[in-house]
Each structure stands twice: as structure tokens, then as C-alpha cells.
């Protein structure tokens, strides 16, 4: 194997990818199972002359992100589920002010303080905005250490392009496991284009001050802003939907799963195929925008679906929205920090096909 492939934990790979993407400001507060990410940034941002602050709370960290992003900096925070809940007010403000930022959730089990084991119970929170008001964030769901690095790296570019915060939704297993990873090329932050809307430097640049805010007390104006933002979301939906398919064409049943669940489902698929059972896999990579259209097309072709999640059933609701009653949709999940095994998923497939 080439020497440029490194063995890294998911958490560390996310940190290194963010630095290589030109993240100049990281604000965080420790929480398991994402601590290696905060530690990686603490060790590696200063030597590059960039900003690292361990804030006094998650709320503080996300508001520091708001401040840095308002000045045009590539800014980032990370946490795990309970900490991400605390950041929701700030995420809503970022969306209301159309600010780019990257937020990483290395999710753990809930609700409440829950446990520190991996979970996908934050799907609703991630894909429905999460905080108050009408808004969405782009949500990217990596399945491996390599994809954690690739998607985090790309998250900064997507966020700048669309002026929408990007949430990278991993889980404790992806954060903690080690795999080989080939890291993307470093970007010099100074080489990035200036953001014409960013606050500050008006004297230097001889222009009127830019005003970055999510507040508007005139209902007619605020409604117009929200409508314009949702029109923009339609563009994002058209351009960004991303998914991976494995042996879907001839499948009698299609597993729908993201992140760690998709890895488990792939194993179940391989075992099923070895027994002559035609199983396919549909893996959403963007959870928002969710690939409704492709799933709808598959439903029209008579496919049936089994959503596999590490939750009590959240993404399955999007599968049902996508298929709109045109195909049977079943659910199999484990929660509380339990990860389904390949054998369990295979047994559920066999049970459904025999019914």
C-alpha cells in the first residue's frame, strides 16, 4: 500500500481534513465520543497560526463560530449528540443569517445524557433543521474514515458555495475506529476568494459596512427572506442529492441505510447474495437533501424496502415519504448504543421475504 495512506481514527481524520480544507477557526467543548477531534485541533491549529478555542460551553462555541463565519472565515465546531442539542439555537441563527459553517456531530445514544456508544438517533434533529424557525442545513453522512475526511473537506466548499451550514453526521463508531485514509490536498486559506458579504474591514476596503444578522422585525420583509431562502433550497436539492447503490437493479428487497448501518447492511447483502438471495443497498450520502426522487423511481419499479438504522426508526419516515405508498417499507433497528449485526439484518431480510 502506498505510503500516503495513513492509519487514522475517524475523529482525527475529520480534524486533519478540516485543516486541509482551510478551516482557520475551530471552537469546541469536549464530549465523548468525539474528543480526539477537539484534541487534534488543539494540537494542530496553533502551529499553523490558526485559531483554536476550547469554549466554556457548547452554546458559546457555536456563537464563536457565528462570529468567525460572519467575518468570512472558514469556521467549524464539533460535538456529540447532547452537545449538538445545545448548539441548536446558534445553528438557527447561522441559517437565519445565511452564514457558512461546518458542524460535526459524532453521534452517541440518547435521549438525554444517554450513553457514549454509537447511535443514529439524531436523524430528525439533523434533517429537520433542529432549532427554531423555518430552515435546513445540508447534512452529509460518511460511512468510513476515508469518507469522513472527504466529506468534511468538501463540507467547507459546499457551505461557502450555498451559504448554508453543513452538518457532518457521523457516529461514535466512525469516530473511534481506525482505517486507512488518503488525505486531500491542503488548501491555503489565503488563496480562498473573499466573501463580499462578510462583516468588517470596511475602512480598509473603502465601502459601507456589511450587516450580518438573522433579525428582521418587519413581517413582510422576513416572509420574503424566508421565501427566497426556500427557493434557494430548491436549487440545492436539484444540485446536491447524493447516494450510492449496490446491486439494486435485480434486487427483490432494497436495504436503505446510511453511515455505519450501511456498512452492516452491505455485509448482510454480501451474505444474502452468497445464498442466492437478491438483496440491494441504497445508501443516502446527503441526508438533506434526501434523495427522494431516486427512491420514488425504484418504488415505481416494484422494489420493496427495508430501512436499517441505529435508532427506533427515523430515516424510515423519509423512505416512506419518498415511496409515497407505492412500495412496502419495513424497518429494522437497534438503539441505545447497540449496533445491528450483519446476521440480524440478514435474518430480518429472510423473515420479510418469507412472509
Amino acid at each position, binding site marked *: 500500500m502506498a505510503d500516503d*495512506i495513513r*492509519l487514522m481514527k475517524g475523529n482525527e481524520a475529520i480534524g486533519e481534513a478540516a485543516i486541509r480544507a482551510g478551516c482557520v477557526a475551530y471552537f469546541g467543548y469536549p464530549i465523548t465520543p468525539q474528543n480526539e477531534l477537539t484534541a487534534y485541533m488543539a494540537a494542530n491549529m496553533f502551529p499553523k497560526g490558526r485559531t483554536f478555542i476550547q469554549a466554556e460551553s457548547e452554546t458559546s462555541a457555536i456563537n464563536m463560530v457565528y462570529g468567525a463565519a460572519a467575518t468570512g472565515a472558514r469556521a467549524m465546531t464539533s460535538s456529540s449528540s447532547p452537545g449538538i442539542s445545545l448548539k441548536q439555537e446558534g445553528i438557527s441563527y447561522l441559517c437565519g443569517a445565511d452564514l457558512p459553517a461546518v458542524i460535526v456531530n459524532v453521534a452517541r445514544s440518547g435521549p438525554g445524557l444517554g450513553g457514549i456508544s454509537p447511535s443514529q438517533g439524531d436523524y430528525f434533529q439533523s434533517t429537520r433543521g433542529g432549532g427554531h424557525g423555518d430552515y435546513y442545513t445540508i447534512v452529509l453522512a460518511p460511512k468510513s474514515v476515508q469518507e469522513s475526511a472527504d466529506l468534511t473537506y468538501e463540507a467547507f466548499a459546499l457551505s461557502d458555495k450555498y451559504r448554508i451550514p453543513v452538518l457532518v453526521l457521523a457516529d461514535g463508531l466512525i469516530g473511534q475506529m481506525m482505517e486507512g485514509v488518503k488525505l486531500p490536498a491542503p488548501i491555503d486559506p489565503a488563496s480562498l476568494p473573499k466573501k463580499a458579504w462578510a462583516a468588517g474591514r470596511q475602512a480598509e476596503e473603502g465601502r459601507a459596512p456589511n450587516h450580518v444578522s438573522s433579525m428582521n422585525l418587519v413581517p413582510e420583509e422576513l416572509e420574503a427572506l424566508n421565501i427566497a431562502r426556500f427557493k434557494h433550497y430548491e436549487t440545492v436539492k436539484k444540485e446536491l442529492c447524493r447516494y450510492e447503490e449496490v446491486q439494486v437493479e435485480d434486487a427483490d428487497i432494497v436495504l436503505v441505510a446510511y453511515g455505519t448501518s450501511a456498512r452492516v447492511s452491505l455485509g448482510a447483502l454480501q451474505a444474502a447474495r452468497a445464498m442466492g438471495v437478491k438483496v440491494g443497498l441504497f445508501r443516502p450520502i446527503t441526508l438533506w437533501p434526501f434523495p427522494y426522487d431516486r427512491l420514488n423511481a425504484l418504488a415505481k419499479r416494484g422494489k420493496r424496502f427495508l430501512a436499517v438504522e441505529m435508532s427506533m426508526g427515523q430515516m424510515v419516515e423519509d423512505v416512506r415519504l419518498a415511496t409515497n405508498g407505492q412500495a412496502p417499507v419495513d424497518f429494522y433497528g437497534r438503539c441505545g448504543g447497540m449496533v445491528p449485526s450483519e*446476521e440480524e439484518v440478514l435474518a430480518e431480510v429472510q423473515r420479510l421475504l418469507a412472509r
Partner: protein
Amino acid sequence: MIEKTYMAGFGGQGIISLGQMWVYCAMKEGLQVTFFPAYGAEKRGGIARASVIVSDAEIASPLVTKAHSVIVMSQDSVPIAEEICAPGGVILVNSSLVKADPARPDARIIRVPCNEIAERIGDVRIANMVMMGALSQATGAVKLDHFEAVLKSFFPPAKHGLIPMNLAAVAAGRKAV
């Protein structure tokens, strides 16, 4: 080729280092790898376990639920080995600390007195590397032919004096199978 290994022992035995070294070496041999640890909050004495997979193709689930090979470094780890070993799998037992073999008549059970061998070489702390040599010999999944180079990058130069002892541990582990 895919080799799923489950490694179990107690904290302080070097289970995590064993798993990491195994996948480092596998990567150098061009294989795809995943390593997922599970351990207690204690610094020493709690459980220490790892799901470790090496393959020449894309790896699906990183969790080992049916292991082709199991490493049992302590008596406490025998029940998990009995449960997780795939039919006809290999169970490598550290016979220095495990006095009752796993009750799996279908499995190939290999007894390696890791602690005794390690002490004979010079340090009980390299018992994990003795076991890695045995795992390589028993499964053939990772040849460990880049082991010395991996050690050189793993240890800071000040600790390169420890390398010959580690090489001897792996060689002795191989011979014990």
C-alpha cells in the same frame, strides 16, 4: 481474503496495541483494514477488546460478530471467545493465564504461553507481540514482513532499542504454533 479477528483481554495487556500493530502491518502489505476498540474506563484491569478486520476487498461492517480467529489473553475472555468464534474458527489462547480452554470442540484451539515466552525474551509486556506472531502463523492473513519498518515509525528513535525484543517476540510466537 478476509480475516475477522476478535481480540480480548484485560487493560494493560496491550490488546489495543496488538490490534493497531496488526492493521498497520496489514496496510503495509496492501490490505484494507478496520480496527474498532472497546475498553472499560479503567486504566488497567478493565476489559480490553478489539474488532479487527483485514481484507483484500472493501470491508463491510467494521464490527466483528463472527470471528475467523479469536485471541484470548485472559481467563475472563474465555466466554466471549466461545460465543464469537465462527464455526471451525481458530482460537489462540494465552495459556500462561488461561487454565481452562474455551468449550468449542469445532474450533482449532492453539495454546501459546505468551507470558512465559515474553519473560524468557526479557519483558512480560511483549506477550502481546508473541501472540501477534502466533496469529500470523495460524491465519496467514498478515505476513508481518514489514513489522520492523512499522516499529521504526511507531516508536520514537529513543525507543528503537526495544525493536529487537519485539522482533524476537513475534518470531517466538510463530514458532509456538
